[in-house]
């Protein structure tokens, strides 16, 4: 088989695929983070913990409650979204008028508590999560072997990201949300229930994280630390894409997944810092992010 810069094509494509999969999870998570930041002005440090909560909820529903994979994939994010709504209503809401740092500390604290709680109950080791029977096996593409589940992850993540983007950019509800980021008091003076909208926004975005967690479960096992290892990269993605830019977050997430994959192929030692090198470069050149509208 042909080589590209001394790397076999199959290895390269394999890493690209892995990169795209990671990118899909980055996209689902950074999308939610970008929306929460844009609409609620909150830097949601508990996003990784909600991702983990999604994974565990899916695992619990599957192994203990006996739900099927598909039911779980819907029910787990809904459950996580409900937890998010409660957090927003009872805690986060009180901090909107205050400095960013307070909500950052609150959400960071929630993340630590959730992770600590799950580590205490379930231990640090991962829980196995079977690939659903309909999505096992793979397709031989000739140059490489594509596991069906991985293809499914990429497709469903992209579809959800695009639908979310459309809902925000092209619908009336999205227009309310966009306007509410600019002038919430005036949107309220037009008769729109902004507090409810903020609760639902937070619940939806956190639900997206839960969905990513449930989707990731068959790939990476479910463990209390699964969110915290991912969330730092996801924050870098949001910073690179531009805080609050939704399309930017999706594009950046996929691009960085691929860049990470390529680094793994050509210079494995740098793969875990590739994203941060990109972040440093972007901050130097365009401090407000690649896709931010202010710059």
């Amino acid at each position, binding site marked *: 088989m042909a080589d590209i810069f001394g790397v076999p094509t199959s290895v390269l494509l394999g890493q690209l695929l892995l990169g795209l999969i990671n990118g899909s999870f980055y996209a689902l998570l950074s999308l939610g983070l970008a929306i929460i930041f844009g609409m609620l002005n909150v830097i949601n440090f508990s996003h990784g913990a909600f991702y983990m909560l999604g994974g565990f909820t899916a695992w619990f529903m599957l192994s203990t409650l006996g739900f099927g994979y598909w039911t779980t994939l819907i029910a787990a994010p809904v459950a996580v979204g409900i937890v998010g709504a409660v957090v927003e209503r009872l805690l986060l809401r009180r901090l909107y008028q205050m400095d960013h740092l307070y909500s950052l500390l609150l959400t960071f604290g929630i993340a630590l508590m959730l992770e600590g709680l799950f580590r205490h109950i379930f231990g640090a080791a991962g829980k196995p999560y079977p690939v659903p029977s309909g999505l096992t096996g793979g397709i031989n593409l000739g140059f490489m072997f594509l596991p069906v589940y991985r293809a499914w992850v990429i497709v469903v993540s992209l579809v959800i990201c695009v639908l979310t983007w459309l809902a925000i950019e092209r619908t009336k509800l999205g227009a309310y949300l966009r306007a509410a*980021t600019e002038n919430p008091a005036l949107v309220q003076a037009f008769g729109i229930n902004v507090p409810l909208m903020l609760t639902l926004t937070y619940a939806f975005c956190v639900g997206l994280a839960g969905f990513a967690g449930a989707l990731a479960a068959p790939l990476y096992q479910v463990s209390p630390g699964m969110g915290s290892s991912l969330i730092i990269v996801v924050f870098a993605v949001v910073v690179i894409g531009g805080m609050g830019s939704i399309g930017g977050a999706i594009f950046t997430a996929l691009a960085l997944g691929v860049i990470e994959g390529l680094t793994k192929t050509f210079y494995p030692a740098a793969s875990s810092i590739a994203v941060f090198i990109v972040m440093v470069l972007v901050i130097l050149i365009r401090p407000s992010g690649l896709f931010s509208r202010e710059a």
Partner: protein
Amino acid sequence: MAEAALLNVVDLEAWYGESHILHGVSFNVRKGEVVTLIGRNGAGKTTTLRSLVGMVGKRTGSSVFKGVELLSIAPYKVARLGMGYVPEERGIFSKLNVIENLMFPPAWQSGGMEIDEIYSLFPNLESRDNTIGTRLSGGEQQMLAIARILRTGADFILLDEPTEGIAPVIIDEIGAALRVLKDRGMTIILVEQNLRFAASIADRHFVLDQGKVVDEISNNALDANMDRLNRYLGV
């Protein structure tokens, strides 16, 4: 008073954070009337409007609109009673284009204007649909800010300095539009520094000073009371 007031404000006090801005504002507005709030900068005119739509911190006192105590309902419910707010800074959304801005506020009551009627009232807005709202001139933004309220079916409009910083030609257009609205039976509270503009449309004037209504002058008596008024306004 012959007719029951549509809006009755009694001893309204309001705060922004720690600063106490309104110290007991009382006035009333009857159906179909145009009243103005006039007074020096910082007298509390804008804050009075913002208090009605729930855009200040703490409020005490009472403001009853169509029989509903506005101080005890959630801010988003005020618009649903038919009160439309046109803020001083116009509040055109920079992330939305002209038509999105125009269609933005939900119509809570029937009887709102159709788009065609709005365009005949404000011809400048026609065929500007895809322009970003904040790229319009100041006068056009003001028209847009009024126009979007007319769509909602609001029958009670709060207008905060619609002529501020606007070219005289456009002021005339806005004045003409307001008279059309008055003829249609809309009730309007107008905050205005431009006394000539205010006098051309209003029925009564309430003078605010240091967070209180200190005087009421009917428009007919305006000329006779010019000296008194100038003393309040400090001109």
